[in-house]
């Protein structure tokens, strides 16, 4: 287990470095003129050159990268060019929003998706058909459309939830809950559908396998077979899907964050990327990369804990 961890960690650090370098170089290549964007069209070339020099943009790209890297390792990610935000603070302000969404959605998805999947996989028949149709609908309906309808009905017309904004959990728990409920529901629909489908097929597949049949013929109680054997074996694919979806949420949250006016990582990424705000984008890319590495590691560990045979591979 320790060897596995060390191998994974070394690989991860190398991956992070390569990601950082590639992102930095790719972002620096476009023929952009940050000084001019900042100072406006009326500024003199002299003032623009001075601004670019102040930001260190007059140096070779690799020098700029190593400068960034050295500071980043020390915990200083710099400051946004376009809004003067400290990158760490800016991400720190917005991360709780997106994390609230991601964790909320993952919980809802894990519970609802799992229950629906097991229900469909064990009962079959009408229940199964219902879950199947729900899953197809959950995937087929465009997310933004569902979100807009949800906002119009539950926030604007009925006034049950706020339509825009985010209340930090540290200020008010109920306020926080009310601001993330609708976004989480909107984001969960497709995710629940995906997990339910996955769990359903795994349950069916495992139920049909030889050893379960053997256990059944030996007369073990149905319930025991289900919990001890079927679900345990069917969980691995579900966990993988859940992990992938959690990572995917970083991107999927964009639309929901925009529609609900939530100051989260998703909408931030869009805004600053279109401007080419390298300090902020680098911060976000690193955050995402580290997040992906950690989640994958956790998923692997969880699967390993559930299914000892997975550890060998």
């Amino acid at each position, binding site marked *: 287990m320790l060897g596995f961890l060390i191998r994974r960690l070394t690989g991860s650090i190398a991956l992070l470095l390569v990601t950082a370098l590639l992102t930095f170089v790719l972002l620096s290549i*476009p*023929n*952009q*003129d940050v000084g*001019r*964007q*900042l*100072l*406006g*069209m*009326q*500024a*003199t*070339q*002299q*003032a623009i050159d*001075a*601004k670019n020099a102040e930001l260190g943009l007059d140096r070779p790209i690799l020098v700029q990268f190593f400068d960034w890297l050295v500071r980043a390792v020390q915990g200083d990610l710099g400051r*946004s060019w*376009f*809004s*003067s*935000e400290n990158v760490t*603070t*800016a991400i720190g*302000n*917005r991360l709780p929003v997106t994390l609230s969404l991601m964790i909320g959605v993952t919980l809802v998805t894990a519970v609802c998706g799992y229950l629906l999947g097991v229900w469909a996989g064990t009962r079959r028949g009408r229940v199964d*058909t*219902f879950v199947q*149709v729900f899953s197809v*609908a959950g995937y087929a309906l465009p997310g933004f459309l569902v979100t*807009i*309808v949800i*906002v*119009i*009905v539950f*926030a*604007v*017309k*009925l*006034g049950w939830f*706020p*339509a*825009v*904004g985010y209340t930090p959990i540290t200020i008010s728990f109920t306020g926080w809950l009310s601001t993330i409920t609708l976004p989480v529901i909107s984001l969960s629909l497709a995710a629940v559908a995906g997990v339910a489908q996955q769990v359903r097929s795994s349950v069916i597949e495992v139920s049909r396998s030889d050893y379960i049949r053997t256990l059944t013929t030996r007369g073990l109680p149905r319930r025991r077979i289900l919990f001890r054997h079927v679900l345990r074996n069917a969980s691995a694919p579900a966990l993988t899907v859940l992990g992938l979806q959690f990572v995917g949420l970083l991107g999927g949250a964009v639309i929901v964050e*925009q*529609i*609900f*006016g939530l*100051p989260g990582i998703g*909408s*931030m990424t*869009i*805004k600053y990327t*279109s*401007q*080419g705000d390298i300090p902020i984008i680098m911060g976000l890319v690193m955050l995402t990369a580290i997040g992906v590495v950690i989640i994958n590691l956790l998923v692997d560990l969880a699967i390993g804990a559930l299914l000892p045979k997975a550890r060998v591979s």
Partner: protein
Amino acid sequence: MNKRVLGAVGAAVAAVLLLSGCAGGGADASPATHDKTLRLATMTVPQSLDPKDATGSALPFFQAVYDTLVLRTPAGDYKPMLATEWSYNDDQTVLSMTLRTGVTFDDGTPFDAKAAKANLERFRDSGGPDAANLAGVTVDAVDDSHITLTLEQPNPGLLFFLSDSAGLMANPADFDEKDALVTTPDGTGPYVLDKDKTAIGTTWVYDQRKDYWGTAPDFSTVTMQVFDNENAIVNGLKTGQIDAAVLQSADQQLAAEQDKDLTFQDVLFDFQGILLFDRGGAVTPALAKPEVRQALNEAIDRETLLKVVRDGRGQVTSQVWGVDSQGYETSLDDYYPYDPAKAKQLLADAGYPNGFELTLPRLTSIVTDNIASALQTDFAKIGVKLTWADVDAASALKQIFVEKKFSGMVMNMGQSSNDWIVYSTLIAPGTFNFFGTMDDQVNKLAAQARALPADQTAELYKKMNERIVEQAWFVPFYRMTYELVTVPGVTAAPQAGMAVPSIYNYSLSK
């Protein structure tokens, strides 16, 4: 089962329709009350809270904490603020100002002539957006409460600048400390930034300053929240989570109008059109001929364009001077009616009977699909082949303004209420005339206007406007109607020459 799902979807849609139909019924006759917090929504993020980085569109963020030397009223007149009186000498080259006494910055330091001088010189020298506006200005502190601004040549835009970002006065004690003002503003204004509640980049919270020298504002707290789309802003206005915002997109204006409780006021600030830079024909030789530029103007079906692109929300126009300026003339709005036959004739007269090829950069945020195809169709009718070159936002400015790769571009431009600023940004060689086109008549009129007090220049600017329209330096389409939307209980006055109201223009409804 499929039928059942369809039924459920149908029911949901019906419910939405039913609910939207029910909303906004009976109007309330009693005056609405509102709490003392003003919640503004915007899509503009200020680069920092240091006045040297301030630009017009982000002004409200600054006005809350910094007073300007001169106050610009909603109608565009100048009133005392930190300067109580001012006057020009006869040849308009020395502006003398008397400063208000007894005013202090947040830390108790008094505001005086030395502070004003330090601020103005900093704008001039530190290379920010206002450096060009104050270039060549010498500031002298006569005594504690008097300063003079000496100009190399008259600048009829100066008072406007001093009522705008170049008039924002910050505490000079913070100038030496690098970046002190960037996130910790220190001014004499009616509010102070609440740093604990502020998350720079998303939400700024300002609390009323207890010892403010002027009349206390109606609101004890102002929050400014940044959104990246108007859809969320409209939902916020409908649910009362946002008190005021300016809506630009026609679709969102329409969506907001379904709520009968909201108040709407038209703001006519931005025009949209093609700025033709290349009037000398350096990139596109045909454009050197006035007839060709006139032909482009005649070729555009402005009414249809306005209807298609903006749901008819705006006014078609052939001029770049805005309704709040002296040079504006109603008759110039329809100077170039839609007339493809005449356009073809003009092209033939200029020696281009078969048209020519024109490449313009396409910034997708401005040139939407319907604008792109409408212009291509209109121009194709007179034989002009319009090609759109995709440029990304990050490198667009460089390609257009530095590398001069294009003959013009479609832009949304604010229309200043100050005629000299219209002239100096759009007409004079420089920012938007970077190919440096000159015109003797315009030069003469500008020289005359420059030396006269503002109340004597209307005729000159009208003539200048006529000349520019006739020479077809631009291909304006229309002024776009933006809407200033407020919730019950909050009143806001649109600001002449600005897309968004000044922070002083908001009050509680009486």
